[in-house]
């Protein structure tokens, strides 16, 4: 409704401006021309009077009256007593009593009533000269123009109102679709989409944007639903086991040792539940992007050195050879703790699924834009069809079902990669799995440096002291 009123207002104002300018440039122009002609006429006559006195003026007047073919010039010369001396007007018109002022008065000339524009000038010796022009043609023009404009304005007013109604209808129709869809969504029906007219206009664009948003929301909702189903399953199982153990022990345990054993096993089941929870929360935390503030310039080489040394012990214990190869410098911008965790997850997976007496290889390379970290094992791998799903939460391969784990490791790695603007790719190692962590060397957001100091401090907890600013403010309170 507001748009329609606005439209009508804009339309009306522009029409009024148009009419006014039309009037100014026609009637106004004629008026100005008449004024100018009268002024020039009067100047000329005054010059004759000055040069030749009264007789010269009367002569000029007569000749001008005779020469006036259009018969619209009006002259009247009177003596100081008001007696007519010359001119084509019979008497001094009523109401004209001040010199040098424009008057428009009705006149009657040759039996015809008309209007005249006139002005009188005082000449030396008390003579008064009235100069004017018959403007009846101009008045006719003005009438015609006025009638035309009234018609035009009426038509425009109608058109404007019609236009406003059309605009209103158009808005209403385009928006009613959107509002109906959003209302349906708000009620919980996420399948609704805004209908597109296909015209490619702004409303179509808006509809498309809204539909894209709805698609994204639907995908997220599906994700949440899948995750909550998976949580329900993956958490229900250990909780059920723990509960069964405790209930069983409460009613059947005969010795204290049996009771303690059952409680301990139940506790460790619950620890497993806590682990799943923590992993889920951590993924959520990373996906929310909250930790991008901890990005700093880091060299990945020592990170890889330390991790390979850390896990090499486990590999050796399982008779797995860990092959390593990377350049001396792998500079990048990122969160060291998170990248450490991502690589550790991949490496632990590789060691976990690698058969004894086989190789796990860990390597890294770098180009101008990316760092690629490859971790490959010779284990069972992941079937090609499952690879895209392997980074989803709670995915567990056929082979993995018998091994301990939460099914959240790769999902976490993937979330970390995405936070850095990188990807986690899973390839076939023929045989085995080759996980490739691709990280861009430059962080996507350069504003990270602000909180880096804070993080560095936080990791080295012992260095932290209450800051002096806080001390001052509290001592103020005490005083």
């Amino acid at each position, binding site marked *: 409704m507001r748009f329609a009123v606005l439209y009508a207002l804009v339309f009306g104002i522009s029409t009024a401006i148009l009419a006014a300018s039309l009037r100014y440039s026609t009637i106004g122009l004629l008026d100005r021309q008449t004024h100018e002609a009268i002024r020039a006429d009067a100047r000329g006559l005054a010059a004759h009077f000055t040069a030749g006195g009264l007789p010269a003026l009367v002569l000029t007047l007569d000749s001008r009256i005779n020469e006036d073919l259009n018969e619209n010039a009006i002259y009247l010369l009177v003596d100081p007593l008001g007696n007519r001396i010359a001119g084509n007007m019979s008497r001094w018109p009523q109401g004209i009593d001040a010199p040098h002022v424009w008057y428009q008065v009705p006149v009657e000339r040759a039996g015809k009533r008309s209007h005249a524009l006139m002005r009188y000038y005082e000449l030396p010796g008390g003579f008064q000269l009235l100069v004017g022009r018959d403007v009846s043609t101009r008045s006719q023009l003005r009438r015609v123009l006025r009638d035309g404009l009234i018609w035009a304005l009426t038509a425009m007013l109608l058109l404007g109102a019609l236009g406003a109604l059309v605009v209103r209808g158009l808005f209403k129709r385009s928006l009613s679709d959107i509002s109906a869809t959003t209302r349906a969504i708000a009620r919980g029906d996420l399948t609704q989409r805004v209908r597109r007219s296909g015209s490619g206009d702004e409303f179509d664009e808006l509809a498309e944007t809204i539909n894209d948003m709805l698609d994204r929301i639907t995908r997220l909702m599906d994700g949440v639903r899948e995750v909550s189903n998976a949580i329900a399953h993956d958490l229900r199982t250990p909780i059920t086991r723990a509960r069964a153990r405790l209930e069983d022990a409460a009613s059947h345990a005969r010795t204290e040792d049996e009771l303690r054993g059952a409680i301990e096993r139940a506790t460790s089941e619950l620890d497993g539940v806590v682990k799943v929870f923590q992993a889920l929360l951590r993924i959520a935390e990373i996906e929310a992007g909250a930790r991008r503030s*901890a990005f700093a310039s880091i060299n990945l080489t020592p990170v890889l050195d330390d991790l390979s040394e*850390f896990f090499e012990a486990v590999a050796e*214990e399982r008779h797995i050879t860990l092959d390593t190869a990377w350049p001396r410098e792998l500079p990048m911008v990122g969160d060291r*703790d998170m990248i*450490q965790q991502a690589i*550790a997850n991949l490496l632990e997976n590789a060691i976990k699924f690698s058969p004894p007496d086989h190789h796990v290889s860990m390597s890294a390379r770098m180009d101008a834009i990316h760092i690629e970290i490859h971790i490959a094992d010779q284990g069972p791998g992941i079937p090609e069809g499952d690879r895209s799903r392997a980074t989803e939460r709670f995915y567990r391969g056929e082979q993995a079902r018998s091994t301990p784990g939460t099914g959240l490791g790769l999902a976490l790695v993937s979330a970390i990669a995405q936070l850095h603007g990188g990807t986690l790719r899973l390839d076939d190692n023929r045989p085995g799995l080759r996980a490739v962590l691709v990280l861009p060397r430059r962080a996507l957001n350069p504003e990270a440096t602000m909180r880096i100091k804070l993080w560095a401090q936080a*990791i080295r907890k012992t260095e932290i002291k*209450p800051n002096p600013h*806080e001390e001052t403010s509290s001592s103020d309170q005490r005083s």
Partner: protein
Amino acid sequence: MRILIVEDDRDVAGFVVKGLREAGHTVEHADNGRDGLFMAASENFDAIILDRMLPGGIDGLRLLETLRAQDNTTPVMFLSALGQVDDRVKGLKAGGDDYLTKPFAFAELLARVEAMSRRGKGEGPTTRLLVGDLEMDLLSRGVRRAGQKVDLQPREFRLLEYLMRHAGQVVTRTMLLEGVWDYHFDPQTNVIDVHISRLRQKIDKPFDVPLLHTVRNAGYMLRVEEP
């Protein structure tokens, strides 16, 4: 040790108080922030265990900030259900010495509180560590046991140094992970146990009396067994 626990959950507080008393500590308990602050400020404690979210108008963070503003340097460990990295950072920035997320294992809490309060005592810089007949020279980075030289890799040296600095105390796997490797993730494999067993091969295996002990359900402890 004299320990103050400020925790509003009665079950958690009761469990911790009981455990700490069993471990031989004197424990005081406050169940809201106001009382907690009053006790922490007016009495001497060796360590304070502090919940983040507390009733009584003063939460854990404010309690600690007020305490630190009064130049009270008692070691403080947060015990909180707020476990995100940002929460940890906030806690440590407010002056906390350690941060333990709920739910927790009591053994972890005990080990961390004991380690923290010892760190708080400030022994000054040492150049030599000694546990029984095991000695470590921090300057020459040499390790000897019963006069015999023991060759250690740099990381094994740091692991042993951490254990020796906490000799007589339980050290959990998480503490080793953070203290020796500076890792803040939870490994899925028994990698810490493997590193411990490698260290054992070098410092215990060739000798009669073992120094590095496994504490069931908790972690490890380096100490001389009393005969």
